[in-house]
């Protein structure tokens, strides 16, 4: 009986133990950041670029598993250190299995992944990549009446959202710094120093024409 109870306790605490390395990684040093550039909300589409540094020796590809409910198009990639453009590819379902890619979760027919290949990282070296994509996500980016709604969680320490041209910010659930871009768009920068996700809810409405 006691053995059974101990086994149950071990089982229940296993997920928490498994998460410990991520929770105890140094947040300030994490180097992934994403900038979202919103298109008009009727399209549910937004462009994004995602920068990160790969420093694991021998690593030669980056896999971006597309979030369920989103679709991806227009992938692009470059090595920021040299300016060299890379050629990403989008693989779906069976093509992911055929390429023997480990996407960290079971491959379903609707699974979608962006693959970016680059020269293997040498010992003591690293490479900084910029991956750009266009996402469409009707559930998380939409128009409600005449109001733009962005409702998406962020896991990275640094994220930015740029409103479409002609839209003014009316609400942000999470503290952000706000700036105006050179072309007159409103940009929100989110810095989350904690190792958790932030549920970002942004609302905006069209500026009256001058």
């Amino acid at each position, binding site marked *: 009986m006691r053995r059974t109870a101990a086994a149950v306790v071990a089982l229940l605490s296993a997920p928490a133990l498994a998460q410990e390395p991520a929770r105890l990684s140094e947040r300030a040093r994490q180097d992934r950041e994403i900038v979202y550039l919103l298109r008009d909300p009727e399209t549910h589409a937004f462009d994004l670029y995602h920068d990160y540094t790969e420093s694991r020796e021998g690593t030669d590809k980056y896999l971006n598993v597309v979030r369920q409910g989103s679709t991806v198009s227009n992938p692009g990639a470059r090595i920021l*250190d040299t300016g060299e453009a890379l050629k990403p590819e989008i693989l779906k379902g069976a093509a992911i299995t055929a390429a023997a890619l480990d996407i960290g979760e079971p491959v379903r027919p609707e699974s979608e992944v962006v693959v970016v290949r680059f020269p293997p990282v040498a010992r003591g070296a690293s490479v900084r990549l910029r991956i750009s994509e266009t996402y469409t996500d009707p559930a998380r980016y939409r128009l409600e009446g005449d109001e733009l709604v962005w409702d998406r969680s962020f896991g990275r320490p640094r994220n930015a959202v740029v409103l479409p041209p002609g839209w003014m910010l009316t609400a942000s659930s999470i503290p952000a710094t706000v700036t105006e871009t050179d072309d007159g768009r409103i940009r929100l920068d989110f810095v989350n120093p904690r190792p958790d996700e932030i549920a970002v809810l942004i609302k905006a409405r069209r500026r009256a024409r001058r």
Partner: protein
Amino acid sequence: MLPSAALIALLAAPPSPAASPPPAQTEADEYTRYELLGPGTGRFHILYEVTATTAGATRFFNPIRKGSVATDETVRDRLTGRRLPLAIVSGREARAGGLPDADADESYIAVELPRPVPREGEVRLLIEKTYQDAKSYFVEADHIVFSRALGIKRNSVVLPAGYELIACNVPAQVLTEPDGRLAVSFINTFPGQAAVVVKARRLP
């Protein structure tokens, strides 16, 4: 060899105007790690990650803070891990080289970049140096104090081996390094400097 027509055109061209000053230095993605060395020495080792982002730049300047004595400066290209040539230069030279706000009374590490910063790209550097600064790192009663205004937004302070953390005035992660030292790590989300005070005491 130039074709002769081009050569003539070149010879006939008016003298070139004085070279324009280099574009102002820009940087991004800064992170600093302060490793506290022997208590009472006032010495700490700095590992500063910074990214040069001015397209076309071939040099990068990093100030040596007034009041700190710097030694053991090295700079590496983080793309390859290779060491880069550097020189210690005056504020005047840094100003001429692309740092218009450089303090004339301050010294700067001038780094020769391994390649010009690509357009829409960057050159990532790791600058290491050891500072001696008894006003920033000192012994007080039975504990050590690291007290420094930090302008960089992402930082960590690593205690000497065998020390426990007894105070930190900014919200920070506390982590144990693989070698057992404690690290205090934080992101400053506000626009000004963070006046950080960390205190630690030797374990019995």
